[in-house]
């Protein structure tokens, strides 16, 4: 009897603790969201002046901000696609074949992951300056793909761990060539790993600050625009945009988690 009570106490204590940690995590988010409804009109926009949707309206007029967000989206999309393609075929190749230098490539993959982002940023900056690669969207794409590829590879590799090699042999045995086998068998089976990697790549790209800071030239991405406005005082339309982004991502998570997509997939055989 006492043990059960103690257990329940432990359990509630645990729940309270987790709750507190979540509160810590979400605190600034709450601040951001709430402040987006702040009716304040003057810098530094900190004190609460009443509830208002005004800034959401002002957001639509802030072309510079919206442009920067558009840049971020395009950049993230392109980077994700490129890094996913390169990363996936690399992961498959490294899994299947033995060749000299595999361990070298393996080690190199960890570099963008482990070294501080600032080092990668300045290194790429020096490269672009020397080789005269125009600094703008192009250099940003190069930079983002570079730090995304390892994460894609790690994700796909994890999925490859339990992969049955004879699946591809079975396909070839049934008369299907290597390329077609890759598209019809390998990719679909690996899809969850590829999807996870792509999602991770997208997330990293959208939120990247430091590497973009050094490699962007004049192109403004959303995080960089935010950084700019922090110097002068962040207007709540930035908060508004962030809130909207948050809502979209939460919706996305809810959709995938609730299995809606899973159910749609099962409809076709």
């Amino acid at each position, binding site marked *: 009897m006492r043990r059960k009570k103690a257990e329940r106490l432990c359990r509630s204590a645990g729940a309270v603790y987790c709750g507190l940690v979540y509160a810590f995590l979400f605190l600034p988010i709450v601040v951001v969201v709430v402040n987006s409804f702040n009716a304040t009109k003057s810098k530094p926009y900190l004190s609460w002046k009443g509830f208002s949707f005004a800034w959401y309206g002002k957001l639509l007029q802030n072309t510079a901000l919206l442009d920067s967000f558009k840049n971020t989206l395009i950049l993230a999309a392109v980077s994700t696609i490129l890094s996913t393609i390169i990363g996936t075929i690399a992961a498959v190749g490294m899994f299947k074949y033995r060749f000299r230098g595999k361990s070298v490539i393996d080690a190199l993959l960890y570099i963008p992951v482990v070294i501080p982002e600032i080092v990668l940023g300045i290194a790429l900056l020096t490269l672009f300056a020397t080789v005269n690669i125009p600094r703008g969207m192009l250099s940003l794409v190069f930079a983002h793909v570079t730090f995304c590829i390892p994460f894609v590879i790690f994700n796909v590799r994890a999925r490859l761990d339990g992969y049955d090699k004879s*699946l591809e042999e*079975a*396909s070839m*045995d*049934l*008369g299907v060539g290597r390329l077609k086998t890759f598209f*019809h068998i390998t990719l679909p089976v690996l*899809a969850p790993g590829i999807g996870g990697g792509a999602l991770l790549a997208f997330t990293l790209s959208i939120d990247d600050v430091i590497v973009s800071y050094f490699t962007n030239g004049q192109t403004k991405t959303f995080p960089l625009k935010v950084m700019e406005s922090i110097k002068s005082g962040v207007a709540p339309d930035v908060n508004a945009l962030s809130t909207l982004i948050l809502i979209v991502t939460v919706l996305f998570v809810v959709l995938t988690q609730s299995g809606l997509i899973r159910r749609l997939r099962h409809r076709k*055989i």
Partner: protein
Amino acid sequence: MAVSATGRSLYETSRMPSVSAPGNAAPGRCKSGGDMLSGRALVQIQKINKFYGSNHVVRDFTLDVQEGEFLTILGSSGCGKTTTLRMVAGFEQPTDGKIFVGGEDMADKEPYERDVNTVFQSYALFPHMSVFSNIAYGLRMKHIPKKEIRKRVMDMLDLVQLGGFEYRMPSQLSGGQKQRVAIARAVINRPKVLLLDEPLSALDLKLRKQMQLELKRLQRKLNITFIYVTHDQEEALTMSDRIAVMHDGMLEQVGVPKEIYEKPVSKFVATFIGETNLFEGMVSSVDGDIVSVAVESGTICGRAEGFQKGEVVAVSVRPERMRYSTSPVRGFTIQGVVREQVYVGSVLKSIAVLPNGHEIRLERLAGDALPMNGPVYLSWDPKDARLIHSRDQEVYHAVETAVMEQGE
């Protein structure tokens, strides 16, 4: 170096390949598993060797597989049987030697270019496709019209008794069901040859026995040539038209089950297939076709031709052919003491121990038990013993001892 098969016709079953007529048989010693009877075998494996680095995995392997036959390659783990199968399928290339399927040289031919299909040990069902899609896969890739695909797949499902399972996913199937889907998927392409790599090893005993019969039935019905690989000798004996016994990368013997069992040509085949009692010794005298052999525990004899006095031999006698008596039998001087008897349902298994510790196994249909702990004289009908030319040097020790004792 392949051991020669006995020089008799290799066919004792009723299944004759469509090509040859028995009257054309040219009996004689076949130096390999090649059959000199029929014209061209469907699958011809000629002197293939496979090296993995310095590891000689398959040595000078030669085998002909006749059209329509169920041939099993039997051997223990690591003997190279799976490697051989994979070379026929095209997943590995022989280091040298040639493989012909339907008369075509398979060198440099990819697996998808061969008219050969495989059933994998792990089933290898595509996890993201339904049963229907798995089976239809090969046909769909060949762009066969949908209607025809549907008909053929449904027919195939009925054939393997999985009607109604078309929309299940592999993860929802049991082992036996997965196996049948794998077979259906391979067979629907109407290959010339079906290769099966220990397909039943993951199933439990009862299911395995059931599947063995089903496979046999399927093979007969579809009339496809099966090359089956297994380490289970009982399985091989049950299902095969012919068995090719493989050991350490080499082909030891090829023949029909009865022949493999009753007339093993090597010690390995004798001990691997079924249970046997193996004596090693030296030929002490040859009287017509009765060969007397001096072994450590005494003298034994068997009926055989082609043996000379002084030759080192191994003698194999199956437990069910072993006889005992309480008085000596002419021609035999081995005597043992019955130590164990086990009643196993339909048979009575006994073990008699010879003075040198050699355990002799006897098997009789349940009846009178042997006198426990009492001395028995062991013997057999000479024609039930199988004499094997032995190349073992370690036998000399036993032989010397026997000869010296005989001399006393």
